[in-house]
């Protein structure tokens, strides 16, 4: 055990998980015997916790449009002729989404896959807007915790697979609280994830069952959408999108963890 008090910055290294295993054991032994250094550690952790919990301020509503405008101007500066394809692809996506909205929004009572499909179809409209926009997964997890969701959420990073986080919403799925978060792909396609307390037993018959890495997946198709359900502890996770069914399954396989 160390004979002298460690420097404050070394206690900070301990708090931030930056010590080597050997040094960490030494410092732990010292902290167990030294109230003064233990108090220093408590203070540093207190401040870390307080700053990590600071609320996020929403950007002004016009900021995304301002940024889009300067990027558009930069694009025009770089190339005077913009290919038509850039506008046609998103337009086709908008038309497909509009058709799905009409079909899904006008249906009666829903089972879970239908309810999730409806959420996807209405996402981005006034009926289902995001509460907060952020590309930061841990920040969104903290947001859900602050908003009082009783279960632990895991907002996974799909950046390596070409999907950036857009934001989140504390939602209700068939009257039960759910954490809803959305991604946008490089091709402007949307992926929505919902997490809620429940069980796969609640899903209707008819879905395809698959197993991957010891995790059970249930796959449903609804009006051109693919929905993949799996469990993480007591929480049901579902990914839904109108991209190819194989892609949705692949994304779910990549991100599901056994709890």
């Amino acid at each position, binding site marked *: 055990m160390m004979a002298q008090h460690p420097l404050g*910055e070394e206690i900070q290294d301990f708090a931030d998980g930056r010590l080597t295993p050997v040094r960490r054991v030494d410092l732990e032994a010292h902290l167990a015997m030294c109230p003064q250094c233990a108090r220093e550690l408590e203070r*540093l952790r*207190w*401040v870390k916790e307080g700053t990590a*919990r600071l609320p996020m301020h929403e950007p002004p509503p016009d900021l995304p449009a301002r940024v889009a405008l300067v990027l558009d101007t930069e694009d025009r500066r770089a190339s005077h002729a913009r290919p038509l394809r*850039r506008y046609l692809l998103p337009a086709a996506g908008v038309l497909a989404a509009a058709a799905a909205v009409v079909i899904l929004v006008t249906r009666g009572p829903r089972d879970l896959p239908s309810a999730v499909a409806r959420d996807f179809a209405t996402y981005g409209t006034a009926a289902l807007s995001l509460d907060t926009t*952020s590309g930061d997964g841990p920040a969104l997890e903290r947001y859900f915790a602050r908003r009082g969701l009783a279960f632990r959420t895991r907002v996974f990073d799909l950046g390596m697979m070409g*999907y950036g986080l857009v934001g989140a919403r504390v939602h209700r799925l068939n009257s039960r609280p759910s954490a809803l978060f959305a991604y946008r792909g490089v091709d402007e396609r949307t992926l929505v994830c919902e997490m809620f307390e429940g069980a796969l037993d609640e899903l209707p018959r008819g879905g395809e069952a698959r197993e991957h890495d010891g995790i059970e997946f249930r796959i449903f198709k609804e009006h051109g959408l693919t929905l993949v359900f799996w469990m993480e502890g007591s929480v049901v996770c579902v990914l839904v999108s109108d991209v190819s069914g194989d892609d949705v399954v692949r994304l779910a396989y990549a991100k599901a963890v056994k709890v």
Partner: protein
Amino acid sequence: MTALDPERKRALFDATALPLTTALYNTALRLTGASADASDLVQETFLRAYRTFENFSLGTNCKAWLLTILYSVHINQRKRARHAAISLPPEELESLPDENAAGGDQRLPELDERWGPEVDRALRDLAEPLRAAILLVDIEQLPYEEAAVALGWPVGTLRSRLFRARKRLFATLEGYARATGYLRKPVRPE
């Protein structure tokens, strides 16, 4: 990243960088202290990032890369404005608060959401380099190495400033806790 087709570049940038708008805006707001200045800073950051997007390696930490640009733009704007706060005397950055009054074994109150405005106020009172260290490490959760690159400091400087920033925040918040009755005021010997 090699040179990109313009359409793919824009799509990749929209998917990778723009979702970080809220994080950038919050850092900018806490650096500048004003919403309009923060918006301008974020806009300029995205423009510079877009112009140099080929320099960004997909799969690495996009937030750290954007925060590097944001802090660089901010410092340059402040230098142009000849703002004095950047060039604080070294002793201001290196000194630690007097903790004589901060002793005691009382349990510290939980810093929950109610403390948000007070924590924000205490952050604003920090010298800017100390505040920047807290913003990138504790709020944006960057590793020391990435935060040091973003701020243009050696890792040792970041570590030292982070420690001083936390000590100062502790002193301010503990003072507030005592003033508002969350902690008992220390009893002075007769």
